[in-house]
């Protein structure tokens, strides 16, 4: 048994320490907003925050998380789905199939924590998530819009 702080709540989990956080979140905690895409940290669909920093949870083992870490998933990014990134995404109707978008939104929100007004070059360097529908044009526009909102 290990206690995690997820979306502000302390939760006990019972899983092998080698289990990636992605599967702890999805299968032990039953929170399915964080997606499985590749399992090798290539696509970013599984992006969550640990202490405000974006990490790819499919390769982040439970053993690397301590009780003092703040784990944030898409479900906890905002109380009412109104984080500036979520607002910008809604305004631009960014998602297509939407499967990559929780990870995309978490990656963008994590970047904005450190870089409140990123340039296009910084976006290119920081946001490496894959979206097969190809929403990048609106993702880029949405990042600039979210930066204005926050």
């Amino acid at each position: 048994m290990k206690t995690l702080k997820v979306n502000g709540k302390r939760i006990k989990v019972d899983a092998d320490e080698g289990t990636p956080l992605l599967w702890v979140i999805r299968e032990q905690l039953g929170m399915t907003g964080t997606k499985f895409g590749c399992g090798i940290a290539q696509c970013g669909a599984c992006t969550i925050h640990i202490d405000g920093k974006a990490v790819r949870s499919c390769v982040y083992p439970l053993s690397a998380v301590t009780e003092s870490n703040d784990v944030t998933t898409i479900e906890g990014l905002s109380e009412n789905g109104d984080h500036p990134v979520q607002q910008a995404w809604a305004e631009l109707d960014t998602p297509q199939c939407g499967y990559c978008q929780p990870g995309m939104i978490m990656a963008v929100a994590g970047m904005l924590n450190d870089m409140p007004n990123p340039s296009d070059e910084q976006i290119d360097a920081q946001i490496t998530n894959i979206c097969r529908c190809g929403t990048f044009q609106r993702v880029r526009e949405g990042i600039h819009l979210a930066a204005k909102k926050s």
Partner: protein
Amino acid sequence: MNDLVNGINVSRRRFIVGASVAGAGLSLGILPAGKASADGHLDEVNAWVVIAPDDTVTVRVARSEMGQGTLTGLAQLVAEELECDWEKVTWEFPTPGQSLARERVWGPFSTGGSFGLRGSQQYMREGGAAARMMLIEAAAQKWGVPAAECYAENSVIYHKGSRRKTSFGKVADAAGKLAPPTEVRLKQESEWKVAGQPLKRLDTADKLTGKLVYGADIQLDGMLLASIKDCPVMGGKLVSYDEVAVRDMPGVRGVVKVETALGTSGVAVVADTWWQANKALEKLPIEWDLGPNADFDDAALTELLEDGLDADEAFIGNAGGDIGAAFAAADRVVEAVYKVPSQNHAPMEPMNATAVLTKDKCDVWCPTQDGEAALAGASEASGLPIEQCEVYKTILGGGFGRRGRPDYVHQVVEVAKAFPGTPIKLQWSREEDQKHGFFHPTTMAKMRGSLDADGKLTGLHLRISGQSILAGLAPQALQDGMDRLVFQSLFKQGVAPNMEDHVISYDFENLLVDHAMRNPPIRPGFWRGVNMNQNAIYMECFMDELAAAAVRDPLEFRLAHMGKNPKGAAVLKAVAERSGWGQKDGKHRGLAVTYGFGSYVAACADVTVSGNGDVKIDRIVAATDCGTAVNPQQIEAQVEGSFVYGLSALLYQEITFDQGVVEQQNFHTYPSMRIKDMPKVETILMPSGGFYGGVGEPTIGVAAPAVMNAIYAATGKRVRSLPLKEQLKA
């Protein structure tokens, strides 16, 4: 693509059938739960329209939603005819089982070939209009006035004379009991208020918060998780596995041999969690009989395809004039060989399905592009009559053609047989998804063009050699061995009604397009854009080569053969003008035009190629004439995305085989475009009216060739095979 394969069978009477069996639906108890209000009355006006007492309108959408926006577009069309308040519109998926029980009232569920909207718009608009007439009739009867004196607007019905009014929700119950009208008049596009508007999608909100439940997210009480490995070589078989080696691993509940009626053969581990199942599967010793294709590789493929380039026998897809005479009289003959590899769909959500099987019921939850094919798969795999099976569709985490196949449904039902009554979710790993795709067909093309002394194109021979999708997936659809779909966007006009959406853009005096079918041991499938993709590359890149050989402007060279295709010429001219074609500004531009899935499309690409061969795509201008634009902002989104899909294929993607096994097993070796490489896409919508063309696929056709031609403009080098990878680095 099923509609395309089978021919279109759209019954104008479908909504009437739907309305007339609504009562039967009630007695059979097959209406979706939750549609009866508290006092037990039903709010279904007809099969398409359900109205609750609070005026909420639920539009039933049978086609699948995988990001392409069909769901919202169809709801807009129904709402337009219904005259309801768009703010009160929501949606639901009817199930294929309900549809079957109601004589297929919702028509085909198959969602592909850019058909979702254009294949359903007529009967769904009629459904909306019929529902409006029934609501008005119900109000008129209540007031004792003629229906002709009443009208509906924004979910309210008014009587002109007495100024009485009532809302849809108040008369929906009565309306549902009326006989449907025998004739409806549909609105002209010029009268549209809801359709044609750039409205927001109906399904966005839950995609931003993680609340939307995809197939991969299904959770049922007592559910167990399965991970599967199918024989890595096509045509091979599972021989044995050593269950003892993994039986005591944490969470493991069992190991199951999974052989399906579709010919797949593999093994799944079932555990309390997917992570446990997959860990154990990785450790499971498995013996395969790799079968006859265990030595198949790229060299074997190349040999096979090259053999067809000059073969004597070939299926003729389009011929006119006298190609032999044209070549004999030519001043010059230009020749080039092109190649397009296999590609995987790689949707972000790997294949998955969930099933509960008991002795008399088989329920499946899955993301599918064809609910009815999934239902048939559940029945075939379970051995239960189709009436005892049901499929609950989710929104798809990408489809692109892959999820039209029911292989993973068969598999999950086979696994569920070993756990009667227990919900089983089968989740493929990304590696499994890469290895067991239904890949974009691989072909080569030998192009030959004859020019006269004035540089005029006098003859063109396009020989395609390679794979047929139908031969692999639906051999019954071949015609005397010929796969007509191979000739998408090259087909002759007026030959086959269901190929009219895929005719050639140019008028050539002497032309031969033929196909030497060569089928490698690779499972082919419908991949977004299908055969239009490589055909547009072959045609458009070679037209560029011919223009260069003739020392003609590529735009003028094309337009000289588009006199009979004014809509194609219009989109081509539009992208040329917007992009600054012909300007001496140091930019390197490439053009492409095609016609596919019923839409006229063109693109102009600007590229920069660095000294060391790095290609940067600076700008794309794309135009589409899809006839009717139901939701312009969603069309723009589809066009933008189609370039990411098409250019990922051009720049990075190929599936190759070593000893019969796919070599690219995850995104590190099968890369997909990321934000840093996406060019700015400017979309020009030119709906000319009078028809419904596809949107999801057509512009993919022009993505790769426009960039390939721009690369030539920048470097003088012709790229003739995909992917580009390091080709310019030499």
